[in-house]
């Protein structure tokens, strides 16, 4: 009187055949179909090999205490210039004007990385001078550490002009990273660890803003100051200096990089195996039907011995 199933175990049946049979041909065909089809499915549905990925990092930015200022003091193009480069200052002659500059960098969230640069400049003017345009260039050292180590020197360039003479210019913006190509996932990248302005050069052409910007823009990795709305305040009182204040933030950057070999393989493997499971199940059912019902003739050999002998 057998009421319920107390125990069960699978009984293995081996199907044997020789090499040159239809069963071998069938096996080869079904193995190819099972292991190659998931690769095709995963590849053709796009995204099999990840070519680009992103990561977030707060860069380590420090102001290098180098600046170059050009202010136009008349609508005819007379200008005054100031910089932190002694060779340039010596060459300027009567156009050289020394402003009062105060600079401070702050780490607002106390994570050891500076977050904000506050740059204040007061440019003294003669009685007949008014400021119509300002061009300011500041240099920074920029470092990334999380994936590849990037060490470079970058700049922030601000330019504002107005047909109306101003009293103050306020610039508030973020120093954003611009990439033309994804970064590597490891290694040292210090090709751009050269000064944007060569302070030891005695030639005027090295301090020409156009030359500086041209060679800077030819880099693949640059920073740019994104300042959507500079504020040009009018109505300078007589005798008071022109004030320029800039607050430049160093925000969290989303950086795109090319994933390394193991990361790519891991993601590709996940995609392949998840489709392979379906094909393995289907192939198992097909093979069971074919061999159990002797659609192709093979020799079944039962492995379990029925009686102890």
């Amino acid at each position, binding site marked *: 009187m057998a009421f319920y199933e107390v125990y069960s175990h699978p009984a293995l049946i081996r199907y044997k055949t020789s090499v040159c049979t239809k069963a071998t041909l069938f096996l080869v065909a079904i193995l190819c179909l099972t292991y190659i089809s998931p690769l095709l499915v995963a590849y053709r549905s796009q995204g099999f090999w990840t070519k680009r990925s992103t990561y977030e990092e707060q860069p380590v930015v420090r102001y290098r205490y180098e600046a170059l200022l050009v202010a136009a003091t008349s609508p005819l193009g007379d200008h005054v210039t100031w910089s932190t480069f002694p060779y340039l200052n010596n060459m300027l002659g009567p156009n050289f004007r020394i402003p009062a500059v105060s600079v401070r960098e702050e780490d607002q969230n106390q994570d050891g990385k500076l977050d904000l640069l506050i740059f204040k400049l007061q440019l003294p003017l003669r009685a007949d001078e008014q400021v119509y345009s300002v061009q300011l260039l500041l240099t920074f050292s920029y470092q990334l550490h999380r994936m590849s180590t990037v060490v470079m020197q970058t700049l922030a360039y601000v330019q504002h002009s107005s047909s109306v003479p101003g009293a103050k210019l306020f610039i508030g913006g973020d120093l954003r990273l611009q990439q033309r190509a994804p970064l590597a996932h490891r290694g040292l990248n210090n090709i751009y660890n050269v000064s944007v302005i060569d302070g030891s050069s005695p030639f005027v052409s090295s301090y020409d803003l156009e030359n500086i910007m041209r060679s800077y823009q030819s880099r693949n990795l640059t920073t740019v100051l994104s300042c959507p709305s500079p504020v040009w305040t009018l109505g300078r009182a007589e005798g008071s200096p022109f004030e320029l204040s800039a607050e430049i933030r160093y925000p969290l950057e989303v950086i795109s990089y090319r994933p390394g070999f193991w990361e790519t393989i891991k993601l590709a493997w996940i995609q392949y195996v998840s489709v392979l499971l379906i094909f393995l199940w289907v192939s198992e059912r097909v093979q069971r039907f074919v061999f159990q*019902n*002797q*659609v192709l003739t093979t020799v079944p050999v039962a492995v379990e011995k029925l009686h102890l002998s």
Partner: protein
Amino acid sequence: MSAISSLVPARFLTIIAHLVIVITIFWSRENNVKASLPLEFTQEQYDSEDQKLVVALAVTLGLFAIELSGFFSGVSMFNCSQGLLSLAVHCGASVSLSFFVFEMWECWTYWVIFAVCSVLPAVVEIILFVGVFGLKKKPL
């Protein structure tokens, strides 16, 4: 044998599915012809590509006729290996031709599918015909 009782209807279904999709391609072949031509094409280029695809589809129908005649006449209905082969290739053809239609593949892919999934079973069918009617072997 229980294998044959499930193999025969499965084989019939896959042959009919393949046939249906080949007939559908007769109506929807415009996208595939356009996919095989460059962006700027002349009417003559279009007509020649279209003609080639129509020829391929017509030959496919002819090979279907051969295979179905062998199947329904009993020459290969109870032959396990031909049944399995026919089932597998027609199933593959139905899937590939659905992709052909939906993904608008180029016309050269039809020739590949044709060679593997129409010519092969028809050739085996002809061999079986020769075997049964020519060499007087039993059809099983």
